[in-house]
């Protein structure tokens, strides 16, 4: 099948089906509602299930239930909805169930607005819910990448028995771009007989599986947290993804930016290059695990006088950039978080202000 023109939200829905996920629970919220709209047609065509929950809280636990039964399952929402799901995400991580969550971010806090934002970085990477858990978080910068990350997310969730989040800003959901769904990213659900409550008859076993997040024995709870910690450390070793842009030039400023914001930065970097000003960029594709070494090495280049975290938030990822730069150069933030996306011209002016 060749390329077709899709809205990001439609491509996310289609990619999940192509990835073999036939269970979708959701509650509508702008700017993500087209995923539900699209899957309301498509799930019935492919024999899958779409159930609209009565709230995002309910949806979170529908996901937990289906994942605990060993089914491939996912949901999509936007910022306030993900806040409501965060309790269930904590339970799902604690019970080690694989599931995929998509957050098409809008401006916050509170009800905020419906325009694009990246202000849920902390919520996604540091845990919106309680307890010591992490999600593997991927951040697409195009509709094509959103489709591919969705297709990758299901096997990754199963590899780690852990929730995976695709974190896109509103533009990712709303913009239209050509997209195709790579055959090589299709995957079969893994065998979950070892742990899932998928029925003793179904797995021809006399052993009862138990999916739970309650560990009243402090030793057992600590053991469970150590198991989770080891998984997160393994993610750091095996799952870091990033794109380096103009990184072989003699740049004085390093930009760190992700999602659609990074595409604005690319245009700015190209425009600056025409004026003889070199700027490099690291674009994290995984926000957890964060590309720590890539940022450190890029900021350690001797000509680099500053790392600039550019994000549609009031400065969240900048804390990870500071952590990774290890004082090799000063770190600054630039961004907006009302729904207005900074323009290439603004980025050019910010870069120049630090060079003058």
């Amino acid at each position: 099948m060749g390329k077709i023109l899709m809205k990001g939200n439609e491509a996310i829905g289609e990619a999940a089906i192509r990835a073999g996920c036939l269970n979708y629970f959701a509650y509508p919220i702008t700017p993500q509602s087209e995923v539900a709209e699209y899957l309301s047609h498509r799930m019935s065509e492919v024999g899958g299930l779409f159930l609209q929950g009565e709230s995002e809280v309910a949806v979170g636990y529908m996901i937990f239930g289906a994942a605990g039964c060993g089914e491939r399952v996912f949901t999509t929402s936007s910022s306030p909805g993900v806040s409501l799901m965060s309790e269930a995400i904590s339970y799902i991580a604690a019970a080690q169930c694989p599931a995929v969550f998509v957050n098409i971010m809008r401006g916050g806090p509170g009800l905020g607005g419906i325009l694009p934002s990246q202000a849920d970085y902390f919520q996604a990477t540091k845990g919106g819910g309680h307890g010591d858990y992490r999600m593997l978080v991927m951040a697409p910068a195009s509709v094509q990448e959103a489709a591919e990350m969705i297709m990758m997310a299901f096997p990754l969730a199963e590899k780690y028995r852990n929730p995976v989040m695709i974190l896109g800003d509103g533009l990712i959901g709303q913009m239209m771009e050509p997209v195709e769904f790579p055959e090589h990213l299709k995957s079969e659900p893994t065998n979950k007989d070892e742990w899932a409550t998928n029925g003793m008859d179904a797995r021809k076993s006399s052993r009862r599986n138990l999916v739970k997040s309650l560990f009243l024995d402090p030793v057992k709870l600590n053991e469970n947290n150590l198991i989770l910690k080891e998984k997160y450390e393994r993610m750091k070793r095996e799952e870091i993804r990033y794109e380096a842009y103009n990184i072989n030039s003699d740049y004085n400023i390093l930009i760190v930016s992700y999602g659609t914001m990074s595409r604005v930065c690319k245009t700015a970097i190209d425009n600056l290059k025409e004026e003889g000003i070199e700027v490099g960029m690291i674009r994290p594709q995984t926000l957890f695990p964060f590309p720590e070494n890539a940022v450190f090495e890029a900021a350690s280049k001797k000509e680099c006088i500053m790392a600039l975290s550019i994000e549609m938030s009031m400065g969240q990822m900048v804390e990870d950039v500071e952590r990774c730069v290890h004082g090799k150069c000063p770190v600054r933030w630039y961004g907006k978080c009302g729904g207005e996306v900074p323009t290439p011209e603004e980025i050019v002016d910010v870069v120049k202000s630090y060079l003058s």
Partner: protein
Amino acid sequence: MNISLDGIVVVVGNYGSGKTEISINLAANRKHAGIDVSIADLDLVNPYFRTREARKQLSELGIGVILPPDRYLHADLPILTPAVAGLIRKPSTLAILDVGGDKVGANVLAALADALDGKAYRMLQVINPFRPFTDTLKGCMKIKGEIEKASGMSINGIIGNANLIDDTNAGMIYDGYDFVTMVSKDSGLPLEFITVPAWLYDEIDMNRFLCPLLVLQRQLVPPWKKAAVL
């Protein structure tokens, strides 16, 4: 062959078929031809990339732009300003109604039924065969039926808008033309015009087409690109 549309023109189609891009460019095209043009943004279902994004350029051209009040411009609320009914009752030489996608978007037309009652109109369905659900005749007719049912109005023409945005090539324009020609013949709906992006125009063999062509100066661009001059 020039586009000769006037009167009330209602632009409908499935989500993302290109209704707004076409409405804006059609307004500019007809204004440049010297006629009096107004455009109303009736897209109550799409939160981003609406006619309102191009209002500055349209206003500067002297095109009347009817939008919800400023304070609601970024709300996802179904606000239908009374000025739309006013435009239908006293239309400019060409009055373009840019309607939201699918049957959901077309619901708004039912709310304008009183104003539209007895008025002659052209209701044109935009078709991009590179979009899901409209890559077959059956798919196009299903969307047509749903929009007609929701709006209580009849589609009486089609617009071919074959494109993959920046990945569009001449072959796609020709294939798209053949597709909408087939849809036109089968359905009996006249093919009003097809579109081609301005940057591709020089590569297109115009002799292949038996309908007018609207050259699109792209307006609905992401923040890292610049809208073309209308």
